């Protein structure tokens, strides 16, 4: 394979990634291997080979087809199939929208979030926020979402079995082994049951000034999650870290907000992410283990030392089962995680995902499953 073609393939993969296709280095490699195996002078064969290796879901096919035409130049040879757009896709959406109003709610919230993206505020404390501005309907939507996520996270029977005093099933394997001692006589029955998989969640949420717009939505989400799912610990930070698990665990959302505002002093101040995370590690050293998913909710505007942030995240990453960073800005077009804080954080993250609207929170469930 010529170096030119290889390089061009690499660039094509980067463009696809920029368009939102999830491609890893392995996929680029596969594409290159595929082009080695086929006749690349045949445009159609080139197109189909790249498509088989680089497109992983039907939704991405139109994106690929559009980009292929513009990227690999010239018109496509005659006889090319029209871009495959799965039929039924549209109907599905329509019926879904008709079936519930959830869809519309999500849209309206997206609009809300697009209003403005505030920059970092170093130390201008904006005082306590009025969280009550969110409509009842949005609140319900967020709550429903949190419940759905909690249901998926709650103790699920795993794939593996363990011995049990009185299990759901007779363990034939164990029973037979025991029978050997009695010369093949089945004297005792052994039972087995599924091992439970328990995931724990630790949430570290940034409530500094630059996060203002999102804080309301996210707090509602955190509140709902805290109440639907028992094994979650929530912390908030701006310049200092506070544990708010107990404040959030009250039956009334508005009460929770009042307690929260009283407890947390530096709402909407500047951000010291690194120091806050270091405090978390120092004060709560036993909270993290392999079954814990740690979620950091922040835009990455660090006013402290990025090196401290990098070190703290490296430790968190090492200790927990998974480290997820949710960045509200990631959802806005054209955002690149270039801030010093974000740059220091990126190498230590397992998942870096947007969290600017309900749709992106919906995606969260998948990242939280260990």
């Amino acid at each position, binding site marked *: 394979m010529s170096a030119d073609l290889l390089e061009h393939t690499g660039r094509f993969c980067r463009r696809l990634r920029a368009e939102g296709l*999830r491609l*890893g280095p*392995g*996929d680029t490699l*596969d594409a290159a*291997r*595929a082009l080695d*195996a*086929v006749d690349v002078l045949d445009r*159609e*064969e080139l197109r*189909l*080979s790249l*498509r*088989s*290796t680089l*497109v*992983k*879901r*039907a939704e991405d*096919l139109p994106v690929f087809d559009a980009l292929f035409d513009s990227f690999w130049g010239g018109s496509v040879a005659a006889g090319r*199939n029209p871009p*495959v757009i*799965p*039929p*039924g896709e549209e*109907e599905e959406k329509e019926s879904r929208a008709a079936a519930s109003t959830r869809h519309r709610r999500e849209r309206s919230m997206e609009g809300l979030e697009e209003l403005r993206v505030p920059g970092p505020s170093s130390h201008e404390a904006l005082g306590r926020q009025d969280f009550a501005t969110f409509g009842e309907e949005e609140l319900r939507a967020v709550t429903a979402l949190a419940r759905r996520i909690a249901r998926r996270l709650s103790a*699920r029977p*795993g*794939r593996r079995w363990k011995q049990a005093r009185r299990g759901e099933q007779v363990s*034939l*394997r164990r029973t*037979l*082994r025991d*029978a*050997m*001692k009695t*010369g*093949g006589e*089945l004297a005792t029955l052994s039972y087995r049951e599924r091992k439970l998989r328990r995931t724990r969640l630790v949430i570290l949420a940034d409530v500094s000034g630059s996060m203002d717009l999102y804080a309301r939505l996210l707090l509602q989400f955190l509140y709902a999650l805290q109440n639907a799912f028992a094994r979650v610990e929530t912390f908030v930070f701006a310049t200092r870290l506070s544990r708010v698990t107990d404040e959030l665990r009250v039956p009334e959302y508005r009460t929770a907000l009042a307690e929260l505002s009283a407890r947390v002093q530096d709402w909407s101040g500047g951000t010291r992410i690194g120091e806050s995370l270091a405090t978390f590690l120092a004060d709560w050293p036993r909270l993290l283990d392999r079954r814990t998913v740690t979620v950091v909710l922040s835009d990455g505007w660090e006013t402290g030392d990025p090196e401290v942030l990098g070190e703290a995240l490296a430790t968190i990453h090492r200790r927990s089962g998974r480290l997820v960073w949710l960045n509200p800005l990631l959802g806005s077009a054209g955002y690149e995680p270039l801030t010093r804080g974000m740059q220091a954080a990126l190498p230590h993250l397992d998942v870096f995902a947007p969290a600017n609207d309900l749709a992106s929170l919906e995606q969260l469930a*998948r990242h939280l*499953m260990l």
Partner: protein
Amino acid sequence: MERQGYVTDRAVATAVFLATSLGKPLLVEGHPGVGKTEIAKVLATVQEGDLIRLQCYEGLDATTALYEWNYPKQLLHIRMEEQGSVAAREAAIFSEPFLLKRPLLQAITHRGRPPVLLIDEVDRADEEFEAFLLEVLSDFQVTIPEIGTVRAAARPAVVLTSNRARDLSDALRRRCLYLWIDYPSLEKELRIVRMRVPGIEERLARELTAFMHSLRRMKLVKVPGVAESLDWAQALVTLHATHLDESLVRETLGCFLKDEADLRTVTARLEAGELPALSAPLG
């Protein structure tokens, strides 16, 4: 592939070719009845290998997918072999002759030409199983505590199909090559019908495919796929039909409509004379 009675196009052929030459599993998605499963069957015939099929369903677990000990046989063996130490007898009954090989283990221990492993409707298995499947697919080896690690002599070709009942994990998608199969074009479906239902009259084949295409444009609960076209064509040939007319369509609706609401919708459209490609009923 065409020789095996599978009418294909370049997209399918390229994907299958790449999957076999890169040695990666092929994930096939598409609507029900477009011939996803057929790909694996035809591939097995072309490669002259065996087809090993694992049908997925909710709650599928390792004992049905991978292996299980043959407990009754073990029990009988213990009864018959009364002498020997416990350890010796234990080693005897936990050995290969007492192992019930389920599809995944069958594919791994297969001797001779590499088989084709079809993992059908993987979207119906739960996520737990998907993770387990990833383990097996990544290196084609399995560890059975009593026996040891079993490695595949020759990597089987793997085809996974999904009806998109749920979204598959990115990890699984990443491991596979991807192929989306759409409903066929009118010409392609006509060729499929001609090839798979040899006795069919040309006029009937044309009318039938045109009718199916207009059906797929309607909003139906269960859109009929190619499989339904073939069933219907076969039924019509059995009835010695040479062309379609309204009463014939009405009598045989059940061949391609599998939902009561759809039956009503289509009957109403038939009565209104809104469905094309029907000849006037013969006197």
